């Protein structure tokens, strides 16, 4: 409860022009933090991008609370965001608390997307903290009767330089009340940017930014006390399990409720084609989901099967192509990029090479199947979710339940690791649909088979690369086409009913978008054309093979082809693969990061294959790959051991040199890169969604194998290049892109055999070796 004495006090600090409205932030925060806050917001000024109170406040005890409109998918962002805020507002790091991703408490910064947690939102958090400090000094100037030029702020206290006895704390100035200053802004959600009066600190002044800081969520995780969304409970809550067909596209015809009659409290809920069971106890819901007898409509999806998928894709007429666009790369592009004349380049070529590479459908395969809790009542809804996009989730649920958008609140909570648009948005929409129908809070958690078979998939992509070389081996024509399923067949932000399974099963219109994108590597070739083509989805409604973003969507599948193909050109021209790339990359930062990787590895300049290992069964090789995205530069070297008899690949060592501009927290960056090296090695060696004509057959960790201890890279060396003063770019996914090609190129170096299809399972490697 809010205390009466904090409710109606209004203070005008007219001297500063800042209207400060009284409100009990502590009580509000405590409520928000405990149950996500159901209704503690009446007195907080409306959360809008245009007011400072939406970004930052100071509690009566001087604690700074910063409101961050993004979320943490497991990378430990909270520490870095607190560093940015502490740095600019001048309080110790421990005195900054971060509230993340609550659609009612934090400004929409787009949620987690494209590794822009710091790139986009970092400047917002810094600027609003700096503006708060500027205003606090102005307020202090009036109260202390000292000119602002004589005032500094240190550790949450404003004091006079001339007379240190003249001092006042932030808490005394504004604690428990709100900054009411305006914040000029442009854009919205993931394009939101602000521009305040206060200047930002220069890198030479940094005391907190750039320091290794521990993760704040770690103790709660290690001692088993941190509540994740799957641990969240409400009074009177029901447990639900969804029922999915065994043939894709089938819908329920008859449901035999008597088949679960002996399970205490179990009940069937059917809303159009959406089918679920609920029970008071979770185990009874699980049992009922297993026992329920359903007859399904006939459905013949005629999926091409995962074995024949690439034949299907090659033959498919593209639904959409990248728009024609000039320019030489840079950002990952909605359009392709083109320079010069391909036709002319190929006409002059002394030699033409081409190659096709294949990257499979992959599952997010979150460690925990998705979970969401919803409480729909009184014409509104509150949902608890670990989706990366809580604002879109709220909008999507409003659309699904036909509620006014302002009546739906999505509260983000920690959850299973998230690598883009996984199944979280689906589970919470299911929970909302059920809660509305039953008039009680509902918790949905998927079973393992749903987490693999029904999550939105990373699209399968074929890359076709062609190069024309002149007599000296120079690349004078370069053409690349990525042909694949859409990155937006299933929207990356579940902002409409049509973007979730619950919506699709209850009649929402189809909202499949055809777009792929392409990496923005900066190689400059005289005549080049890089583009994409999208093929039609395999099923248009409630498909288990819906495709969407999966970590590093503009990198991984494309770069596998591009960076393997450059290696092939290096082999054909007997060039060192690093030297070859350096010839076509022009910027100093790119050369620096590549040199740093080579130095750390101890790279000796030579061409591949290694050719000195005779007929040994176990052979060693090294491979290089490079990527650039959003001004983050990554150079990766893999060293592998290939067992010719079994086809097994061991990763002996992986080196990653990484430049993402100014580093905020070297501790968490190093860890997030290290973990990416393992994750993407797993995707490269093991992961492929299997499916037959009717349905996905990857339903557990045996049929969708992921990396385990024996296969992780034995040594991972990370070299961080810090760039003080250069804008933070991103680090959450950028190191993934080069890994498939780095491993494939290393296997070639070891064996002279080129791997053109991911995953590099032992069977496939063995088959490739025996063909050679």
């Amino acid at each position, binding site marked *: 409860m809010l205390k009466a004495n904090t409710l109606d006090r209004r203070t005008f600090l007219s001297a500063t022009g800042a209207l400060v409205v009284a409100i009990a932030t502590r009580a509000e925060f405590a409520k928000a933090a405990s149950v996500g806050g159901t209704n503690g917001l009446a007195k907080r000024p409306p959360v809008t991008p245009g007011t400072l109170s939406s970004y930052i406040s100071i509690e009566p005890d001087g604690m700074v609370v910063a409101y961050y409109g993004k979320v943490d998918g*497991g990378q430990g962002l909270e520490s870095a965001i607190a560093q940015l805020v502490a740095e600019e507002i001048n309080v110790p790091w421990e005195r900054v608390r971060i509230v993340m991703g609550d659609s009612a408490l934090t400004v929409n910064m787009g949620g987690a997307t494209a590794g822009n947690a710091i790139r986009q939102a970092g400047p917002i958090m810094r600027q609003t903290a700096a503006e708060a400090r500027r205003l606090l000094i102005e307020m202090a100037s009036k109260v202390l009767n000292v000119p602002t030029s004589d005032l500094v702020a240190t550790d949450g206290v404003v004091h006079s330089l001339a007379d240190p006895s003249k001092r006042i704390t932030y808490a005394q100035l504004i604690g428990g009340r709100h900054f009411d200053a305006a914040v000029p802004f442009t854009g919205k959600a993931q394009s939101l940017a602000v521009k305040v009066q206060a200047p930002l600190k220069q890198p030479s002044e940094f005391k907190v930014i750039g320091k290794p800081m521990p993760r704040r969520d*770690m*103790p709660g995780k290690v001692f088993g006390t941190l509540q994740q969304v799957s641990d969240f409970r409400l009074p009177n809550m029901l447990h639900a399990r969804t029922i999915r067909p065994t043939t894709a596209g089938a819908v329920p015809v008859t449901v035999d409720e008597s088949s679960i009659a002996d399970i205490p409290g179990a009940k069937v809920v059917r809303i159009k084609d959406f089918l679920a069971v609920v029970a008071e106890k979770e185990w009874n819901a699980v049992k009922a989901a297993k026992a329920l007898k359903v007859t399904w409509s006939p459905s013949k999806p005629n999926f091409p099967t995962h074995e024949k998928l690439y034949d299907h894709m090659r033959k498919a007429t593209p639904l959409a192509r990248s728009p024609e666009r000039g320019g030489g790369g840079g950002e990952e592009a909605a359009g392709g990029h083109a320079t010069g004349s391909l036709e002319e380049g190929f006409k002059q070529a002394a030699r033409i090479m081409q190659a096709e590479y294949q990257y499979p459908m992959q599952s997010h395969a979150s*460690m925990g199947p998705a979970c969401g809790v919803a409480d729909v009542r009184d014409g509104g809804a509150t949902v608890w979710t670990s989706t990366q996009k809580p604002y879109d989730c709220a909008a999507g649920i409003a659309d699904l339940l036909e509620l006014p958008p302002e009546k739906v609140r999505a509260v983000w909570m920690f959850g299973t690791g998230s690598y883009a648009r996984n199944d979280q948005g689906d589970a919470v929409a299911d929970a909302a649909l059920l809660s509305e129908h039953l008039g009680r809070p509902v918790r949905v958690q998927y079973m393992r088979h749903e987490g693999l078979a029904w999550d939105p998939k990373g699209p399968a992509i074929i890359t076709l690369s062609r190069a024309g070389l002149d007599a000296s081996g120079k690349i004078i024509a370069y053409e690349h086409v990525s042909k694949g399923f859409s990155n937006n067949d299933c929207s990356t932000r579940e902002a409409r009913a049509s973007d979730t399974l619950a919506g699709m099963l209850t009649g929402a219109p189809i909202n499949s978008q055809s777009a792929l994108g392409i990496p923005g590597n900066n190689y400059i070739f005289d005549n080049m054309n890089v583009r994409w083509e999208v093929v039609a989805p395999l099923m248009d409604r409630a498909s288990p093979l819906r495709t969407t973003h999966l970590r590093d969507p503009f990198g991984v599948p494309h770069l596998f082809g591009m960076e393997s193909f450059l290696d092939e050109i290096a082999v054909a021209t007997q060039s060192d693969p690093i030297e070859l790339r350096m010839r076509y990359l022009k910027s100093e930062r790119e050369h620096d990061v590549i040199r740093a990787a080579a130095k750390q590895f101890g790279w000796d300049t030579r061409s591949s294959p290694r050719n000195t290992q005779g007929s040994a069964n176990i052979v060693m090789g090294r491979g290089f790959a490079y990527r650039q995205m959003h001004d983050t530069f990554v150079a990766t070297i893999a060293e592998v051991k290939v067992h010719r008899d079994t086809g097994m690949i061991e990763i002996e060592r992986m080196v990653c040199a990484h430049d993402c501009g100014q580093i905020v927290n070297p501790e968490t960056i190093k860890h997030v890169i290290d973990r990416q090296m393992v994750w993407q090695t797993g995707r490269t060696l093991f992961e492929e969604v299997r499916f037959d004509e009717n349905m996905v057959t990857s339903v557990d960790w045996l049929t969708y194998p992921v990396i*385990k201890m024996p296969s992780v890279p034995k040594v991972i060396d990370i070299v961080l290049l810090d760039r003080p003063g250069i804008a933070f770019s991103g680090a959450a996914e950028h190191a993934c892109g080069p890994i498939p090609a780095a491993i494939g190129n290393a296997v070639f170096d070891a064996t002279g055999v080129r791997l053109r299809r991911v995953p590099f399972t032992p069977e496939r490697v063995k088959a490739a070796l025996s063909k050679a």
Partner: protein
Amino acid sequence: MAENLTLNVDGKPHTITIDDPKMPLLYALRDELGFHNPRFGCGLGQCGACTVHIDGQAVRSCVTPVSAVAKRKITTLAGLGTQEKPHKLQTAWIEEQVNQCAYCINGWIMTGAELLARNPHPTDAEIREAFADLICRCGTHNAAVKAVKRAAGMA
């Protein structure tokens, strides 16, 4: 038929009413007793997210019937140690900043703690062997090995 069952969890007795003796222990811990930590990952014993100790042994609670453990000593991650009195592996885990999302953490720490109890100074190969059948989707494998080594080096 509903029956009462007393479970000894983290040193305390808890009596619950169950209507299915085959219900996995995981659901008793989470749903009946409100524990936050052992998690549902697969329900198939394939991943380890639900691991607890039963009489000191790391066991996957998603495939362990609750009726089989009534007289046994059950320890969860929260009972292994606390912020005030941490297990040495928990201390090492924080010092190594092992996790990303930590959904898998019960499997790794409870398996590692069991290893250290029977083998206080395991080799690198022994640690990797102990962890061979666990899943971590975020890729924290090598960091977990380091944490065990760090804990093993503690007095």
